């Protein structure tokens, strides 16, 4: 069984950052999301984040909002998520789920963890659950052997970074900018500073996301982070077809391999 630490260790052994690609389950359809996620795995994503389309995505910009709406109007149900995760596992990929917390609460935190683990999922990234409110999730993730990826932000205090790192396992998610998801032209200047602050508190791998869309940006982030997270750009690529998804993954995979020394 692969674990998240193995994913990052394997990338590090090649002196590079890991490439982490995001796509919502059920986008544009359940079958379509399986196909595109397989392409992302085959074209160089070391890890995929499978998103759970939610009615009120407060951390997401217009691209992912629209994708979530499309998935839901195409009939996405939460049980489809586990099916999509299992398809990634079957394709030889590694998957974590990224989800707002209410659907997990409604499903039952323990039941969600159980079914995700059974589908081969490695953990959950929780954009609107901070460790302060995560008692049930701590217990369920321990019980089912899942990793917990909490977020840190440029506004996080040292105390909160310390506390959040201690509550996390697998990797930490550093939000590169203060803002919502969406491709941006320039890598935030706040990202390197944040990663440097976080490293004072933990040896966990650090993934950086929010705003990455090109191999060149991926290379820049790979210069100081352990993982490069790309979301909205994959969602946009889906509209152009699977070849575009593969091309983007390949470009980004090239990027994480040309980062300026992934060892910080």
């Amino acid at each position, binding site marked *: 069984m692969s674990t998240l630490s193995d994913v990052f260790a394997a990338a590090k052994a090649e002196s590079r950052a890991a490439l982490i690609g995001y796509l919502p389950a059920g986008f544009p359809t359940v079958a379509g999301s399986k196909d595109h996620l397989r392409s992302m795995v085959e074209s160089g994503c070391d890890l995929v984040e499978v998103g759970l389309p939610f009615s*009120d995505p407060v951390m997401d910009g*217009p691209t992912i909002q629209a994708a979530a709406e499309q998935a839901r109007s195409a009939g996405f149900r939460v049980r489809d998520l586990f099916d999509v995760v299992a398809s990634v596992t079957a394709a030889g990929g590694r998957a974590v789920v990224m989800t707002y917390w209410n*659907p997990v609460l409604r*499903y039952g935190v323990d039941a969600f963890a159980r079914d995700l683990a059974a589908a081969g999922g490695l953990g959950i990234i929780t954009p*609107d659950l901070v460790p*302060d409110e995560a008692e049930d999730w701590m217990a369920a993730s321990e019980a089912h052997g899942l990793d917990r990826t909490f*977020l840190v932000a440029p*506004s996080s205090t040292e105390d909160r970074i310390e506390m959040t790192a201690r509550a996390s396992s697998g990797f930490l998610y550093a939000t590169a900018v203060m803002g919502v998801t969406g491709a941006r032209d320039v890598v935030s200047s706040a990202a390197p500073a944040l990663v440097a602050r976080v490293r004072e508190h933990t040896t966990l791998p650090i993934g950086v996301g929010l705003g990455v869309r090109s191999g060149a940006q991926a290379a820049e982030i790979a210069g100081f982070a352990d993982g490069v997270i790309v979301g909205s750009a994959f969602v946009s690529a889906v509209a152009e077809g699977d070849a575009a998804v593969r091309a983007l993954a390949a470009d980004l995979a090239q990027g994480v391999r040309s980062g300026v020394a992934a060892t910080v």
Partner: protein
Amino acid sequence: MGQFTPTPHDPDARGHFGPWGGRFVPEALIAAVDELAAEYDKARIDPEFVNEFKRLLRDFAGRPSLLTEAPKFAEHAGTRVWLKREDLNHTGSHKINNVLGQALLTKRMGKKRVIAETGAGQHGVATATACALLGLDCVVYMGEVDTERQALNVARMRLLGAEVIPVKSGSRTLKDAINEALRDWVTNVDETHYLLGTAAGPHPFPLLVRDFHRVIGIEAREQILEKAGRLPDAVVACVGGGSNAIGIFHGFIDDADVRLVGVEPGGSGLDSGSHGATLTAGTPGSLHGAMSYVMQDEDGQITEAHSISAGLDYPGVGPEHSHLKDIGRAEYFPVTDAEAMEAFALLSRTEGIIPAIESSHALAGALKLGPSLGPDGLLVVNLSGRGDKDMDTAVKYFGLADGGQA
């Protein structure tokens, strides 16, 4: 007891009312809500802040608001009815209490920009007013559907110098306006305060919004004792997010014999599925930063609320109401659009007071509750706002433009 005195009903340090409340927000916002909580903790015991707030309530908002007996309306309720006249506040609703408090906090924090969400436009107009008064930049997010239902309030906000941004995502109503405001806040949090309009959201919003509205209940209790010589049998208020209700409830929360009654928007009726009766028909969940009852499907997707009143059209509710429901201190039931509109017309005709459609839900609740209390019973109804903004809806509903009669 002062408006800001801590009470045994305050949430714990992390903002929990029993299992409800807390902070279900992105980490990026935690610093901002921590800063707000720390500032409020200092402000609530700072005489300078408290006195400035009281001065604005008195000299700008026009408080204390009246308590008016409504004897002809009461004939239809079968019991005595007094109205707490929040409709007479400057800007026409209770919302001014909270916005003045939070705008003062914004200045204390050294922030220059305020964002807000609005449904009916009452909170947006109040926020734009406070920002004009105190020299703050103001951006109001409003669901596109609501900008059409409440075009006059959009014009008011713009006249007051606010920028109004129609929200086109999701159901294009209040909940989506809150989503968009949260997205703005997480992007611009350094210089921006999110002036949330109801007693919901992440801690400390439910606490401080409640405290800014406690003045309603404190005044009402003194006034009813003076005018009627006794406490009421029940205090009745409408509940969307629940800010006017929590404000008046708190004046009576330690009076065990006073029933606290919240009236929810029943829309076309609970069976129709087209309503906003979160406490009556919702289930536990997290929405907009707190655990509370929410309207959701079996997958945890938030469902759309429906009400003829834009201000009650919300699939969540403040966490303290969820707590008061669970411990049995307050009771909640819905009235339909039709019942609310009937009460709207009845109060207008019998007492010469045109209530907001939101407040008309509380009046309809009083009409239902009254007969069980009998002629010696006594109700205080929170008339949370005036109905001028609702005339378009009334014209259509009653066909007033075609010679119709409400």
